């Protein structure tokens, strides 16, 4: 552990145009060629990226008051309800939310053609959205109803606040039953007919900083095509999950909560998404720059697909019933080869998260940093890590105390 670098030194280099930035994919080849020590001295920042469906996403809005004023008790945007249990003209639109009269899974598998994620994409794309609200009338907020049309420009604030994004590693989903199943991991064919995975592997943000040494509260990130921040650890953050010798979790582990101005974002990086038989969600683009503070950080960012393993889980019985059983584990290199072996059978794989878009995000971030447009945010507090003692709880069914 020879030298060290600080955030302010790196930011100084960004401002003077001397910073050296490479992507988490490019750094792998560099390390193979020149070794950890040399590359750590040469490179200041490694950029990462991921573009996948992230269900715990949504946006806060302040719509402004009409005349006369209203306390919005119910709000619908293009027919999709938003949560209004906050101040009068504030609401939160969750990306999984569905229109009131969606047929859901009544004709299984339901198509779920439109929902909260699509409203967010439409707004970011500059489209006009139908807005309806009802109130029950108070002395200060007498109005009971309003129906109008809004664009992203019309509202006072709109910020994405995603309570759980960028899962550090994830399950590989298969179906051992004898009928097709439709899950949040896609359509899974019977008899382990296919295997779906959902991580950018070696490009994925939290897999490049496995112990959250640099990704913490206040880290500045690429979020949905704009600039965002890590606000907190994500929900279900499970830093004490099993890890390999390289520190990388061998299954789902850490998560982050992120926040950013929706008005800066781009529809290309926030896509309303429909999962047949499951529901709607939002596909979110996230990129995180990892400062090479020392050799250890460089070593972390040089992680390769063959060094990252993920558990294979049956989504027909074991996952729904939370049995905790896995059918073995595979590496991302195997997953990306297109075929893995499960119970001695060759199974074709498909990703759900887009690797080429993850690469594009890491590249975009790299170019914004080298162009001096994006400075590092030094975390004001670290996320709970492997030494936190956190353990994930299930929900217990209890009698009234």
């Amino acid at each position, binding site marked *: 552990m020879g030298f060290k670098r600080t955030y302010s030194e790196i930011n100084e280099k960004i401002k003077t145009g001397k910073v050296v930035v490479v992507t988490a994919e490019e750094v792998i080849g560099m390390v193979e060629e020149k070794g950890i020590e040399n590359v750590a001295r040469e490179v200041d920042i490694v950029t990462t990226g991921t573009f996948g469906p992230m269900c715990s996403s949504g946006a806060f809005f302040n719509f402004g008051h009409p005349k006369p004023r209203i306390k919005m008790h119910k709000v619908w945007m293009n027919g999709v309800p938003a949560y209004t249990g906050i101040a009068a003209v504030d609401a939160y639109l969750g990306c999984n939310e569905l229109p009131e009269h969606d047929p859901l899974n009544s004709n299984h*598998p339901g198509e779920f053609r439109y929902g909260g994620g699509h409203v967010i994409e439409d707004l970011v794309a500059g489209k006009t959205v139908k807005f309806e609200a009802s109130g029950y009338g108070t002395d200060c907020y007498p109005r009971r109803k309003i129906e109008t049309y809004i664009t992203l420009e019309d509202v006072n604030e709109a910020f994405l606040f995603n309570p759980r994004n960028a899962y550090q590693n994830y399950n590989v989903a298969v179906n051992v039953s004898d009928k097709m199943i439709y899950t949040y991991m896609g359509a899974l064919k019977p008899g382990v007919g296919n295997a779906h995975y959902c991580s950018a592997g070696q490009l994925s943000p939290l897999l490049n900083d496995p112990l959250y040494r640099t990704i913490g509260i206040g880290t500045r990130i690429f979020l949905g095509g704009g600039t965002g921040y890590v606000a907190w650890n994500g929900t279900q953050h499970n830093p004490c999950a099993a890890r390999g010798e390289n520190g990388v979790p061998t299954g789902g582990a850490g998560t982050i909560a992120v926040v950013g101005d929706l008005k800066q974002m781009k529809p290309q990086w926030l896509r309303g998404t429909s999962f047949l038989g499951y529901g709607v969600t939002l596909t979110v683009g996230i990129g995180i720059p990892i400062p090479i503070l020392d050799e250890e950080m460089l070593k972390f960012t040089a992680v390769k697909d063959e060094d990252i393993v993920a558990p294979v889980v049956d989504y027909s019985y074991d996952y729904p019933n939370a049995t905790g059983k896995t059918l073995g584990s595979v590496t991302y290199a195997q997953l990306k080869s297109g075929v893995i072996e499960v119970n001695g059978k060759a199974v074709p794989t498909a990703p759900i998260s887009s690797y*080429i878009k993850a690469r594009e995000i890491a590249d975009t971030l790299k170019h914004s940093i080298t162009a001096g447009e994006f400075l590092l945010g030094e975390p004001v507090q670290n996320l709970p890590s492997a030494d936190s003692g956190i353990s994930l709880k299930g929900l217990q069914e209890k009698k009234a105390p």
Partner: protein
Amino acid sequence: MSPKKIVLRFPSQIVDKPLIYHLVKDYELMINVLKANVNPDKEGFMVMELSGEPGKYEQGLSFLRKQGVVVESLSEGITRNVEKCTHCGMCTSICPSGALYISRPSMEVIFDDSKCVICGVCLKICPVKAIEASVNGRQ
């Protein structure tokens, strides 16, 4: 009547029954097979032009349906909207003909029109509706 284009989907159990023979023999229909992917162990697909006397035509189709064949009118074509496609890859493990596949190591999703049997499965699977179909010239 003028020939209509239809898609037949056969569950694996009935792939080996002589259904087409019956269409010709019992219902006097004329058949022009445009594309076929029939394999004894798997679900099979057949795209054909079918014509005959209207009454017999309908009877022929209901015969097929009774045998468990899914009969759909043909989308003239399946296209992938490259602007919308995120290359997530989800369609690739579901596409029965290999028309949608991942080019490795770039991980780009490719659509090879010539392999497509127009089964339409990807239309519902694609999470961002990047797959588009036109039925008889309409979208």
